[in-house]
């Protein structure tokens, strides 16, 4: 119950911000942070809970974005349906890729996910209807009432999607599904011997993870009024989705949230003041430091502090 109250509170906060703040920059920045919350949460379902590292976030994210863009161009589909379609297609990609590669050891799955990004990017570079290498311009429809600004509307939408993603992760984590995934992560052989259908569970996690990443990508074309392959399938999404949970904490659904807020804010700060390269350097160093010294992430460190004194 506590969770739902907090979640509703967060969403209301976003709506309040939308109603009162006038500077559009807050919503641009906020949208990006919330988008990374969804990506990190999605990543953690397979990477954190089951222990299978995915380098291919851009493939699922990009497929979601392009699905939305193409459906908008072809049928002027409303945003809500674009998101649903993105979830279905990216989920299907997760299902297929998972079925093919999750029988293998974790490292092979990881390398195969890199291949996915290359394949997806190549596909869309060569598809002229979707804009090819040069990209596609899109004209935004007017924002839905009561929103005045389309960007603000997308911000509130992403806040809602973030809450939904975290709720899904939380449900999986605390249910028998989560226990099975954790058993797989701790000892896949023992899990299988204990009756856990390891392949089915892994494919399930990969499907849900892929679907949520697609959802994160779907509003992107409308957000930018533009879509093109190089920036859509950018490595930064892979880095953000992976580093956020590993730094925030992989065992709990709040870990990716903390990590995403921290890294996304850092990214916006450093990229604007110094350079994108230094930002990646900082993230890389943080990732290595945390993985070595603080394997349970920020959440793990917080738990070690004796909060209660008596």
């Amino acid at each position, binding site marked *: 119950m506590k969770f739902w109250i907090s979640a509703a509170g967060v969403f209301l906060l976003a709506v309040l911000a939308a109603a009162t703040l006038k500077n559009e920059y807050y919503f641009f920045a906020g949208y990006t942070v919330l988008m990374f919350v969804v990506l990190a949460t999605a990543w953690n379902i397979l990477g954190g809970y089951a222990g299978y590292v995915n380098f291919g976030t851009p493939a699922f994210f990009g497929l979601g974005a392009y699905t939305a863009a193409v459906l908008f161009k072809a049928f002027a589909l409303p945003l809500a349906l674009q998101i649903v379609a993105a979830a279905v297609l990216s989920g299907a990609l997760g299902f297929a890729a998972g079925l093919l590669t999750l029988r293998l050891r974790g490292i*092979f799955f*990881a*390398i195969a996910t890199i291949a996915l990004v*290359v*394949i997806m990017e190549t596909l869309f*570079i060569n598809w002229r209807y979707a804009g090819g290498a040069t990209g596609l311009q899109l004209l935004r429809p007017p924002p839905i009432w009561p929103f005045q600004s389309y960007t603000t509307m997308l911000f509130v939408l992403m806040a809602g999607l973030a809450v939904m993603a975290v709720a899904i992760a939380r449900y999986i984590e605390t249910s028998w599904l989560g226990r099975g995934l954790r058993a797989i992560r701790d000892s896949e052989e023992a899990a299988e011997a204990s009756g856990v259908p390891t392949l089915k569970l892994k494919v399930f996690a990969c499907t849900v993870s892929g679907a949520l990443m697609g959802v994160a990508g779907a509003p992107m074309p409308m957000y930018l009024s533009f879509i093109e392959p190089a920036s859509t399938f950018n490595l930064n999404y892979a880095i953000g989705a*992976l580093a956020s949970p590993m730094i925030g904490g992989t065992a709990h659904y709040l870990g990716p949230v903390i990590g995403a807020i921290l890294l996304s804010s850092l990214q916006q700060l450093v990229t604007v003041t110094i350079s994108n390269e230094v930002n990646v*350097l900082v993230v*890389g160093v943080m990732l290595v430091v945390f*993985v070595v010294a603080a394997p349970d992430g920020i959440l793990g460190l917080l738990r070690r502090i004796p909060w209660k004194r008596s």
Partner: protein
Amino acid sequence: MEFSFELLFEAVVFGILLGCFYAAVSIGLSVSFGLLDVPHVAHPAILVFGSYCTFVLAGLGLDPIVAGVVLMPPFFLLGMAVYRFYYEAFERRGSDAGVRGIAFFFGVALIIEVGLILGFGVDQRTVEAAYIGKAFSFGDMRIPMRFVVAFGVALVLMTALTLYMSKTFIGRAIKAVAQDEQALRLMGANPMRIKQWAFGIATGVSALAGAMLIIIGPVEPAMDRVYIGRTFAVVVLAGLGSMTGTLAAGLILGISESIVLMHFGASWAPAVAFGLLLVVLGIRPQGLFGR
């Protein structure tokens, strides 16, 4: 586009030269990942780092191949240090090492790539030597000399390493530790030190491989991304831990890429490695000569 035997023959010749080179850049990974089971996704990044070190030394007047050889001892020590760190931080602690190990090397690769961008910029870098810029002519075919030189060095390197692994005591100890660590421990040898030595050798070899990389063509910091596909494709296709398989796998990749390059253009070439990797993983994950 008409089919021409000459074109195909030329593609195959190039493929063989290229393939041997691919085998040489992958053989370090064959040891570190194939034999030692280290999830070394930073292998291509270290390769590119080696290329840049060669670039720096070449700028001081050294021939690139000499520079590569000179770099081998310091890279060997670097490899030993990296393995020691990896062992203490991950392998010792046991559980959960898989995820964290992969994430660790991913972070290292990022740091190296960005470090190179910050140090050298994103532009391509090249080296100069007597054999770069000239070409051999065979009838209508023109084969750049640098390819032949790289091919020669690659063959020597791989032969030396394969002999080392099969003839010397340490080489065989490395193969033994890959198969049965317990038995080795019972015989009084320290598996960790053997693996550390092996990782050092794999890294040292990569220094010379990196030199060949910049001889064959210009390098840029983001090159590690396309080479991750190539090196893992070669190692998986060869069969984990097979030295001789690495050459065969390298040739297969080199020839496939060359044929695709000639007939479909350069934009498709990187996809060949990844495609080959996925096919191997799907059909025969143990590779050609897997143990």
